[in-house]
């Protein structure tokens, strides 16, 4: 046929850019529907010329839609392919298009959430945050660049994949790859989370002194016998590096004892407590406020 309408690469780039605003009119009734229609407008404009066709197309794309905002891209690709065929006369009805959308959004959200929200974001976020906490501007720049590079290339690549594969993509995705990605992401996620708990949850019982032993002479630096001036500082550093204690009393805190047992044990226990409370449907905000109150009380009592 000579008068076939095709979506140009430019149309698809427009759609890709607009899909950034997918959640802009997120609402409690049909969730991402407004953004979905907004995203598809460049394609619909190309494919449908009469007012009736345009109206029908917009109406069918204002149906309920909700998924992870990035994995919406392959669905957008498939939908564009279906709309293109429909505009060229293939009998594809509204039910088919809506069916493909609904059929893909659930399983794909199941991939998007663990991969992006639970693996990529915590890892990049923790890396950037640890740089930022030390006052380095590299932290935020790294987060912004890496995150958006991953996101934008993922969205473009999967949208193209969806467009080219058309409706076949659903079959591809229900195969093993999807499960592998999800599983791999949750393994990596669990591994990194445990590391983050060890490194970044601070529970410090240092103010609690378990014991304070007077050490024998010669086991600590006798400050009164050091030479004065720079020579004294040098002597003190030499003595310290040869293993002498800085103070006359050897103080062991509760934290020292805990560190010998398992470093980060208290942090782990706090995390498990939070998990348990969350499972009991306690609001995260209540838990956060509770931990602040706990921190203040323990500080006043001199335990932490």
């Amino acid at each position, binding site marked *: 046929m000579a008068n076939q309408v095709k979506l140009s690469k430019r149309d698809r780039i427009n759609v890709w850019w607009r899909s950034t*605003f997918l959640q802009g009119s997120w*609402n409690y009734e049909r969730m991402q529907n407004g953004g979905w229609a907004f995203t598809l407008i460049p394609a619909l404009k190309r494919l449908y010329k009469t007012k009736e066709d*345009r109206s029908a197309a*917009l109406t069918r794309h204002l149906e309920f839609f909700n998924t992870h905002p990035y994995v919406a891209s392959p669905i957008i690709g498939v939908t564009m392919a279906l709309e293109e065929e429909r505009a060229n006369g293939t009998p594809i009805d509204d039910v088919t298009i809506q069916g493909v959308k609904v059929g893909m959004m659930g399983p794909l959200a199941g991939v998007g959430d663990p991969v992006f929200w639970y693996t990529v974001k915590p890892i990049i976020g923790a890396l950037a945050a640890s740089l930022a906490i030390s006052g380095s501007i590299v932290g935020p720049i790294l987060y912004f660049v890496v995150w958006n590079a991953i996101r934008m290339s993922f969205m473009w690549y999967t949208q193209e994949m969806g467009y080219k594969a058309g409706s076949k993509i659903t079959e591809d995705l229900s195969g093993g790859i999807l499960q*592998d990605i999800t599983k791999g992401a949750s393994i990596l996620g669990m591994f990194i989370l445990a590391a983050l708990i060890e490194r970044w*949850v601070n529970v410090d019982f240092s103010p609690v002194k378990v014991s304070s032993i007077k050490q024998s002479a010669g086991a600590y630096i006798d400050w009164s016998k050091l030479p004065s001036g720079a020579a004294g500082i040098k002597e003190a550093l030499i003595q310290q590096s040869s293993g002498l204690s800085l103070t006359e009393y050897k103080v062991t805190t509760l934290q020292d004892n805990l560190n010998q047992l398992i470093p*980060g044990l208290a942090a782990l226990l706090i995390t498990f407590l939070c998990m348990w409370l969350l499972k009991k449907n306690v609001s995260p905000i209540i838990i956060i406020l509770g931990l*602040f109150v706990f921190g*203040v009380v323990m500080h006043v009592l001199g335990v932490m």
Partner: protein
Amino acid sequence: MSLNLIQVILVIFVAFLAGVEGILDEFHFHQPVIACTLIGLVTGQLIPCVILGGSLQMIALGWSNIGAAVAPDAALASIASAIILVLGGQGREGISSAIAIAIPLAVAGLLLTIIARTISTGIVHLMDSAAKEGSFRKIELWQIAGICLQGLRIAIPAALILALGAGPVKALLSAMPDWLTGGLAIGGGMVVAVGYAMVINMMASREVWPFFILGFVLAAVTEITLIGLGAIGVSLALIYLTLSKKGGNGNGGSSSNTGDPVGDLIDKY
């Protein structure tokens, strides 16, 4: 410190951007490490704001919008606490109390988000009638209106804090006694656990717990950087996926219906 007119406009613009991103979740301008940095950049107090952003980012790692659920609002928390930090003029000293202020703000932001999402329900009804007319232009306008609504959600509170000015904010911060700020700093060290707990609850299965233990133990080796740990994690995941497929081939049909849906799917593969 007080800000000049250009700085005020830029701060409100950054707040607007963060509000928009709070719903879009794309560029991540609302993530604390970026939002606080931008506020620091336009107000000339870059480093304290970067540190605040890093600290808040740690707390907010696990906050994400899943399905219809709304996470505590990182956008309002970061923007407002960064503005308060800047206005307070305490520099690094003010960071721990700014973190404590951020948490109630995250709740307030959550409420504002719910209000904005409810108003958006009205917006999509207007889109419905635009669709009946076949008007692309109107749908686009309403979508942009929805986005602006989310931007104003943060820009208006930010403007209010700016309007109140440095005086009251400073008085509030310096009125906080030492036992309170010290205690809040300790609490701040622990609250990051809540985000992690949320994520673990979503991901955990019997199969992946051993990897949690490995990560926890290896993290105690302080010589391994976070990037190093990431590399170990990726390798473990790849090894596990490869091996479990090989094992699956050997067992064949006997392992189907073992109550482990993922194992079954791997077998099929």
